[in-house]
């Protein structure tokens, strides 16, 4: 029987959650016995090759591209999991959520203490994805089946959840594995 496929992505995240996944240490060998990775920065596959059992989403949605990728994951994955505080609540990027977008741009490209931008240009290439008005947690954009909070969630949290789902058991994390920090 073909192994179930897992896809992963980092939207408005820092890749810390992916690092935490690598932090399962030698259990990663067991993991590759259990699953194949599909679209994921782990194997650098850029597009979905087919249906996936599990999609792991790191990061929330801060721009239109994040939304498109997230919708693509929802379309291709049976179970979608928000991994980490950015995916579950917006995280650090969401600190801009009560600051008007214009002020964010001005701080980043014009007025910030480390900015060097003599031409006073704000990047506006059509290639660049447009920023959303605020950063959205994933479940405010598509349906999310499970949430694994943490910044990042510990390797044990990720491992326990994955193993439970792959063996058709409910994800019942012990007290010490649900943490918001």
């Amino acid at each position, binding site marked *: 029987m073909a192994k179930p496929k897992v896809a992963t992505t980092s939207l408005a995240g820092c890749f810390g959650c992916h690092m935490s996944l690598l932090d399962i240490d030698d259990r990663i060998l067991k993991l590759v016995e259990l699953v194949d990775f599909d679209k994921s920065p782990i194997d650098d596959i850029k597009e979905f090759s087919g249906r996936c059992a599990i999609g792991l989403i790191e990061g929330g949605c801060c721009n239109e591209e994040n939304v498109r990728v997230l919708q693509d994951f929802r379309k291709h994955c049976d179970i979608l999991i928000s991994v980490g*505080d950015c995916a579950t609540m917006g*995280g650090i990027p*969401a*600190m801009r959520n*009560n600051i008007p977008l214009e002020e964010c741009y001005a701080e980043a490209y014009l007025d910030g203490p480390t900015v060097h931008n003599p031409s006073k240009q704000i990047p506006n290439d059509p290639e660049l994805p447009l920023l959303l008005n605020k950063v959205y947690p994933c479940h405010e954009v598509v349906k999310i089946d499970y949430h694994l909070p943490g910044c990042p969630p510990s390797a044990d949290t990720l491992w326990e959840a994955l193993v439970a789902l792959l063996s058709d058991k409910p994800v019942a994390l012990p007290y010490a594995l*649900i943490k*918001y*920090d």
Partner: protein
Amino acid sequence: MSDTINFIIDGVEIQGREGQTILEAAEAAGIYIPRLCHLKGLTPHGSCRVCTVLVNGRPQASCTQPVAEGIVVESESERVQQIRRDIIDMLFVEGNHFCMFCEKSGNCELQAMAYRFGIPTPKFPYQFPKRGVDASHPDIFVDHNRCILCGRCVRASRDLDGKHVFDFVDRGPHKRVAVNAEARLADTNLDASDKATEVCPVGAILRKRVGYAVPVGKRLYDEKPIGSDIEAAKTK
């Protein structure tokens, strides 16, 4: 004893005393009723509603509701748990709780409550309100982003410190804690040794220069759920 009051919590017969609240009587019997605004030593406030129980079928705040002969109290039923969970969820989305860098994380009663209820993430949409920080005082700062309006600081300053440094202003969604000065905490008579600086259940009133002193794993609620101390007293 003549002033014993017999009543029932979740099918268990409890002996309370005249003048006790349901929460106090339960606690004396080793039953933990979750609470956030309530703190031993402060006048009960009944504002957070996390301690809601059903008394003869009606929702009541157990921190203010006195015990009475023969009442039937529901505390751990699915319906009551759902009420509490919804309140905790609301407290998270109504503020800006960035636990990943909050100095209170691991020792925070709101966060610990969410852990106790096994909440992976609140179900309501995040409000991301615009709130301020007052870091004017040399020893203490107030971060309104994390305030849950429990009123502990208000009560402690008024009743224990005899100062009235904090109080509530405005109403409804605009309600907030204000300080007894034109604008800044630094202009009040708050002292770093005041009780009001110690009672905040969340990271809204914090002492400066002591953040992150306790390593992850050793903090108050890293291993054991909030309330386990009360529950442990029962098994002894």
